[in-house]
């Protein structure tokens, strides 16, 4: 069996007197696509922060594969960029190139940037002001930014929330393409059950502090926690 890229073992976490996770267990193999499902406030964003090392578990373990080391790309949920946001898509994606302290970018860095813009289908739009870009183009730019360090693991936090249906599909097609081309492991936090069913192989259901993986075929809306029946469009804020 393939060695897991991430193994979460009896994870526990709480804030002060409130216990958020009591027993979360899952293992992800490289190249898998997994959705994270759960009602508002169940701690989906907290789980990401634990995985990213921004929070420390109060119990259990989070084990990332050692060799080769896992580079994580993370597309956060909220960006407050208004329509006057000045930078072009290219300049915006370039912000995340931190491999050097030099104020200018070397030829190798510019080539890498071209590659990422190409992979996210943004090359022809690269000079558009990000503030003027559509919701889907913005999400692609955020995705491109997360891809700049060649991650082997990608975390998407509600990236499709507030997008039109056809744009959601386009974005997820792109994620699937990257998953297949780069053998990228994807963890996709979402409220959108049909989308999860269409694009991910398995889902991590978080409910009442417990979380475990299930094959996507098991996803039946009427088995889901009550809050999740049907599509909940409002993104979680915590």
């Amino acid at each position: 069996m393939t060695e897991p890229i991430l193994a979460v073992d009896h994870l526990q976490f709480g804030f002060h007197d409130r216990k958020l996770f009591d027993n979360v267990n899952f293992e992800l193999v490289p190249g898998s696509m997994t959705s994270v499902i759960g009602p508002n406030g169940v701690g989906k964003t907290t789980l990401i922060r634990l995985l990213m090392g921004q929070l420390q578990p109060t119990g259990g373990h989070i084990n990332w594969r050692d060799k080769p080391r896992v580079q994580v790309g993370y597309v956060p949920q909220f960006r407050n960029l208004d329509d006057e946001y000045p930078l072009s898509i290219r300049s915006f994606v370039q912000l995340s190139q931190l491999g050097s302290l030099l104020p200018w970018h070397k030829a190798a860095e510019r080539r890498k940037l071209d590659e990422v813009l190409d992979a996210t289908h943004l090359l022809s739009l690269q000079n558009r002001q990000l503030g003027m870009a559509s919701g889907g183009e913005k999400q692609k730019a955020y995705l491109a930014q997360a891809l700049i360090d060649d991650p082997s693991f990608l975390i998407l936090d509600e990236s499709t929330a507030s997008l039109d249906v056809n744009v959601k599909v386009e974005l997820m097609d792109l994620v699937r393409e990257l998953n297949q081309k780069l053998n990228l492991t994807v963890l996709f936090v979402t409220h959108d059950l049909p989308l999860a069913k269409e694009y991910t192989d398995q889902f991590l259901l978080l409910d009442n502090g417990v979380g475990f993986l299930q094959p996507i075929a098991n996803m039946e809306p009427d088995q889901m926690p009550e809050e999740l029946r049907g599509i909940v469009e409002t993104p979680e804020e915590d």
Partner: protein
Amino acid sequence: MFHYEFMQNAFLASTFIAIASGIVGVFVTARGTSFLAHTLSEIGFAGAAFAVFLGIPPLDGMLMFTILSAVTVGRMSAKASRREASTSAVSSLFVGLGILFLALSSSSSSYAQTILFGSIVGISRGEIMQLVVLAGFVLLTVLISYRYLAFDSFDAVGAKAHKLPTNLISIYFLVILAICVSTGAQIVGSLLVFILLTLPSAGAKYIGKTLPQMLVISVAAALIGVWAGLALGYYTNWPVTFFIAVVECLFYVGALGYRNLTK
């Protein structure tokens, strides 16, 4: 007009303050801290009054007050939604203190006026050297932290996702801003520093699409403003700061118009 030494000095001084403010201003605008830049110039006035009260050099008092309050505001307003209110609170307190120290030190209020409105045409060679050092300091600090400062200023959420120490960068920048405001304000007046910190960069935002473009446009607009202001002031005898304010406002309105035409 260049055969007068005071005009030569004024041109040199305003050139360096325009370069420093034009650069720092781009980050002020990107980070949405124009209001704080304004507040810092008032706080600088309070610091100077405090220094006069103690009998120490005004610049020391200004640096002390602005850096202290920049760090305080920076720590209080990690949440953007709280930034305005905490900036108001800190600024009210410091302006109040400035008035108190001026009253206590019984020095004439003309000194306060110099700090607030400045006098670009009364600058010594020594003061020009201070501004050269300031411009050099700003260039150097921005250059060594360029990518980190740019990422955090133009996409704080992304910077956090890339595990940048965003709080540290924030305070680092506020200290640069505080030094820029204090040094500039005691020589050319805090009003002029505020104009140069906010308007050229706000206009540059509507024209430039990359950070280097914005920096060049912002510095150019600041330079054109101060040079034109000095020349107009020389020929009309009206206050230089008035003309600079007008030129920079025109530039800002023009840039806004340009954006509306091209969007």
